[in-house]
């Protein structure tokens, strides 16, 4: 019954095109609610009972009936993506309102159609196991998100970013496909995930895993496969950036975790490999983020950082399995997987808030913002909530997952051997540094965007956004606080998933981490803060409260609008330290000697991505250079072309004579 409704909803999506622009979002939301309701019902059932849900879809695929299969891994990811996609669609209704007059019905329809199909394709990615069908829905996911990214297709850079994104996704697709095909050719087993079991049992798993890791890693955004994120996220509308950053990149993590379920040997090497890549992603992600001035680009780099944290969890989990340290394995996996949920919550909240800011101020450049907390207080406080959660501060959800990972690391220290201990130490240092850098970054962002006074006209007379757009953010905010204070059920759910890799999870989850104590400490903290606030209110009723200008250290002309810190100056001391890995371009014009009355000048700094420059752009420039050299053969002269044909024929002739071909 549910299965039939589930598939009927696929067909219903075409109804979007016959509706008016205003009603599309509601209809899309209606279909998504149906999809989410059914799949969540299945998933919750799977997670509670620990069973595997298997059904055959009515659609057949190349003559084979298509089977969907939901185990705890799929179930967890389905729940995560359902939540974020629903909040995303809710948010989109308000966010796209200004575009209603600009865009025609087909464009609007295509957007919502793609949005619903992105949801469907992601659900199917989590549910399908057949290799070919998986690749098809994986491709569907890439294409539908491509259409979503290029919503503002009248802007050239948006289309450019979209195409860049689509290209990288296809590189990933090819790698995943190559992985499947290679396993299939080597073993002759079924062309599906389950067929990988045979391959991994028979051969050395690392090379094939590497292939899959690269394919899925491009989606997930591990450094050095991250280059699409900082381009696609700013270009896309905010609800789309939120969805892509919160859940779509997690499909890469899902793929990696799925492949890992079939690998039982050589886990140490794989674990160390994932740990190193993740540590680099985590550190470099946040280090680049600090220097960004585009709010959404900055958040995109933070996605890379959080993927790194998830990867660190998975990596140490694998090392724990390989070295037989149950607590390391269990808590590493649980923490990493819980962070998937946590990141999806605060990252969508942050992107929606960034969207609200963009909607009101029409800029994403943080140096143009400032003082918004007085004009958009709700957005500001929600952003602050997301910022504190992403920094991993208690009592919010980001802390819980990081705490679990730390717990595993510190508990695992004793039983591990020398080299594992040093690895653990490295992971601890990385996590601590990432935490500190994230605090640096988000204190900067929050202060520059919301505090002080306006830095340009753009942020002067703005109004708070309306309720319809605040509601989805509040939903995410409630989840963030709930997980932060009452984490137990969520940790148990993540533990169920970790149970696919480690056996004695329930025991460890129930006994070891003192989560109830963490909640108690968080509650004490909140209550004490509330009590002190109350005390302060009492005290302030009795005394005189005055208002005046900010203390200018004796300078009577001190004016916050002129003297307040900018994002660049806040990051200056950090930039000095991190300069070896940053690429800061300064654009300015020197004063010429003959210029007696200098013209007005401007100074601009821009932080590029050194990795992108060296890994992608330089090689491409080199290729283009040689291509252009090769273009000299393209003379446009017919006689030359005939000569080429003649030479080619002669070459073939000679080669055949000398038996070279």
């Amino acid at each position, binding site marked *: 019954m549910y299965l039939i409704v589930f598939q009927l909803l696929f067909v219903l999506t075409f109804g979007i095109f016959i509706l008016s622009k205003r009603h599309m979002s509601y209809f899309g939301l209606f279909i998504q609610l149906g999809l989410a309701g059914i799949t969540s019902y299945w998933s919750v059932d799977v997670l509670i009972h620990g069973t595997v849900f298997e059904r055959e879809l009515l659609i057949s695929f190349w003559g084979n009936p298509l089977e969907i299969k939901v185990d705890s891994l799929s179930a967890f990811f389905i729940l995560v993506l359902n939540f974020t996609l629903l909040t995303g669609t809710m948010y989109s209704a308000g966010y796209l309102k200004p575009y209603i007059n600009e865009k025609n019905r087909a464009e609007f329809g295509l957007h919502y159609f793609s949005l619903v199909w992105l949801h469907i394709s992601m659900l199917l990615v989590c549910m399908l196991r057949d290799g070919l069908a998986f690749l098809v829905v994986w491709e569907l996911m890439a294409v539908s998100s491509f259409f979503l990214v290029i919503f503002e297709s009248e802007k050239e850079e948006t289309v450019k970013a979209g195409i860049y994104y689509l290209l990288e996704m296809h590189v990933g697709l090819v790698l995943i496909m190559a992985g499947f095909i290679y396993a299939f050719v080597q073993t002759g087993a079924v062309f599906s995930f389950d067929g990988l079991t045979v391959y991994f049992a028979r051969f050395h798993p690392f090379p094939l895993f590497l292939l899959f890791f690269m394919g899925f890693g491009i989606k997930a955004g591990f450094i050095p496969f991250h280059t699409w994120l900082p381009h696609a996220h700013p270009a896309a509308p905010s609800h789309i950036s939120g969805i892509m950053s919160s859940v779509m990149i997690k499909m890469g993590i899902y793929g990696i975790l799925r492949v890992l379920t079939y690998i039982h040997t050589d886990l140490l090497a794989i674990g160390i490999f994932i740990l190193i890549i993740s540590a680099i992603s985590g550190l470099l992600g946040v280090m680049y983020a600090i220097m960004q001035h585009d709010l959404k680009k900055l958040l995109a780099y933070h996605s890379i950082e959080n993927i790194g944290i998830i990867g660190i969890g998975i990596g140490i989990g694998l090392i724990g399995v390989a070295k037989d340290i149950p607590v390391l394995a269990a808590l590493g996996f649980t923490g990493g997987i819980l962070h998937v949920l946590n990141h999806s919550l605060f990252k969508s909240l942050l992107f929606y808030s960034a969207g609200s800011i963009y909607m009101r101020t029409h800029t994403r450049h943080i140096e143009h913002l400032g003082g918004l907390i007085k004009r958009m207080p709700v957005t500001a406080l929600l952003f602050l909530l997301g910022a504190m959660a992403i920094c991993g501060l208690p009592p919010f959800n980001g802390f819980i997952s990081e705490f679990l990972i730390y717990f595993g690391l510190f508990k695992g220290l004793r039983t591990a051997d*020398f*080299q594992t201990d*040093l690895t653990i130490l490295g992971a601890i240092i990385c996590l601590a540094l990432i935490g500190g850098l994230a605090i640096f970054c988000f204190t900067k962002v929050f202060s520059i965007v919301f505090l002080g006074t306006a830095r340009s006209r753009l942020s002067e007379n703005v109004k708070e956004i309306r309720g319809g757009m605040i509601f989805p953010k509040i939903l995410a905010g409630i989840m963030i606080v709930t997980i932060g204070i009452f984490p137990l059920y969520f940790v148990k759910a993540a533990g169920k998933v970790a149970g696919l890799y480690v056996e004695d999870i329930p025991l460890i989850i129930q006994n070891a981490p003192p989560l109830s104590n963490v909640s108690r400490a968080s509650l004490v903290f909140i209550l004490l803060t509330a009590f002190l606030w109350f005390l302060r209110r009492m005290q302030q009723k009795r005394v005189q409260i005055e208002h005046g200008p900010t203390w200018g250290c004796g300078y009577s002309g001190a004016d916050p609008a002129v003297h307040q810190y900018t994002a660049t100056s806040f990051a200056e001391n950090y930039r*000095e*330290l991190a*300069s*070896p890995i940053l690429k800061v371009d300064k654009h300015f014009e020197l004063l010429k000697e003959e210029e007696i009355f200098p013209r007005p000048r401007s100074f601009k700094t821009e932080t590029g991505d050194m990795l992108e420059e060296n890994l992608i752009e330089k090689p491409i420039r080199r290729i283009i250079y040689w291509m252009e050299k090769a273009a000299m053969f393209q003379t446009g002269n017919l006689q030359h072309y005939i000569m080429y044909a003649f030479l080619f024929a002669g070459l073939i002739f000679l080669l055949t004579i000398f038996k070279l071909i």
Partner: protein
Amino acid sequence: MTTFSLLLLFELTLIILSFTERVKRFLTMLMIQGVLLFGIAYLQLQHINALYLAFILLETIIIKGLLVPLFLNQMRKRNNFNRLAHSKVSTFITVMAISAAIVFGFLLSSNIHDDNLQTKFFAASIATIITGIYFMIVHRNIFTHIIGYLIMENGVFLFSLAVGSEMPMLVNTAILLDIFVGVLVLGIFANRVGDTFKNMHVDDLAQLKH
């Protein structure tokens, strides 16, 4: 364990060296290293021939711990050279690099299983030699080159302890001679350069070609 405590202190001197700016502090650290090596050698080599032992002990404490630092201090005073000029590489990276070298030494030595090799000395010596070479690469100053050279020699001394307790005598005598000549030559050289150029940057030496 006691020997290791001295090695631990020795590695701490490397960390202090990594962020030192004052030349005087460099020399103090060299002195401390000499004294520590004296202690280590004494604890480790008690069973060898008393004459050899006495020689090694005298060598560490008198030459490494006293003579060379004092000689360099004279040179520092003569040339009025108190602070190291900034090198191109930031101190921040130097600290990280030297910490990494220490960890690397431990990692490498834990991977080597050889009965003749005493891993703890090996670990420390690797870190010390890397530090010495690092100083010589990064800094442009002749004076720092001498210091790097001396740190490296301390590393080699530890290395000779690592590979066997009989060896140090022979190895050390040879090295000692090298060092002594080296320091002397470089010292005189640096004095001359100091007279000529007012500072002791290696870059300036390129001018001598003309």
